[in-house]
């Protein structure tokens, strides 16, 4: 971890902001109604951010390609998740696939 102060500042921002979101909805409840469309959009934005994180962490390392073993493991996990396998199975299968591929010399 490079800059501890900055990381702590980031953590504090995230924690305080999240609490503010949790509180403000309750406080505003009597006064405003939140359009369902805006709610769906927020949900969509969260999923898009996380999907982008999945893609970049699965496929890239620094500014380049991460190699085959990692995305292959993630793909196996993704297929299992799509077929509604239990969470633990998904995660272990992903790690195991990548580990076995590396053991076989695929990187």
């Amino acid at each position: 971890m490079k800059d501890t102060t900055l990381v702590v500042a980031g953590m504090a921002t995230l924690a305080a902001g999240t609490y503010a979101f949790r509180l403000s909805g309750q406080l505003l409840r009597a006064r405003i109604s939140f359009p369902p469309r805006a709610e769906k959009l927020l949900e969509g934005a969260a999923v898009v951010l996380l999907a982008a994180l999945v893609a970049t962490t699965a496929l890239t390392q620094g500014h380049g390609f991460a190699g085959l073993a990692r995305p292959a493991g993630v793909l196996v996990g993704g297929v299992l998740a799509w077929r509604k396998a239990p969470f633990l199975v998904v995660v272990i299968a992903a790690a195991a696939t990548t580990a076995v591929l590396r053991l076989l010399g695929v990187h």
Partner: protein
Amino acid sequence: MRDIALTCLAVLFIGLSYGAIAVASGFPLWVPAAQSVLVLAGASEFLFIGIVAAAGNPIAAALAGLLVNARHLPYGLALPDVTGRGWRRLLGTHVMNDESVVFALAQDELPRKRAAYWACGLGVLICWPGGAVLGALIGSAVHDTSAFGLDAMFPAVILALIMPSLRDRLTLRAALAGAAIALIATPFLPAGLPVLLALVAVLLLVREQPAATPEQPSQPEQAAR
């Protein structure tokens, strides 16, 4: 009650992977430990860890995490008064999360809503940090994390978490577009920014939504805890 216990157990396992991944990404144990107690919102913590580990700016990572957590505002609007007053409100506000909100909304009467909300909220408050610390301890004991494929765990965990939302075709399309944008941008932009740039794909949702089904009540996104 059984469902609440099972949910908390699942949260514990996600916490385990979270702690292990955070340590494997180069964070000291106190980072996932403090985050899991103080933020108590898994998806945003994963996002924060992911962006900072990729050498992104921690403040930008926090803002991205806040965007993910903005859904707590409509949660508060949707819930009846389950928290109470005074210190109960302070603590009750903190344990608002996808799971506690879902369980509260599923009950009929206010006392039952309140009981479900608190049971699930407190359960998550114990299981999430507990899992994270345990996972971080396990992760610290493993030295060569890439040999165990731990780096594949992180994207797989998040993928599993957002999978229920991805079954909606419109959301899936936007998510794929966002992922493509982030991948294309990765060679050219500083770390952390490609993920944020992916938000451009939300425009796909804005443009297509007016005709979308209004009769479907929007479910709290169970995935992204």
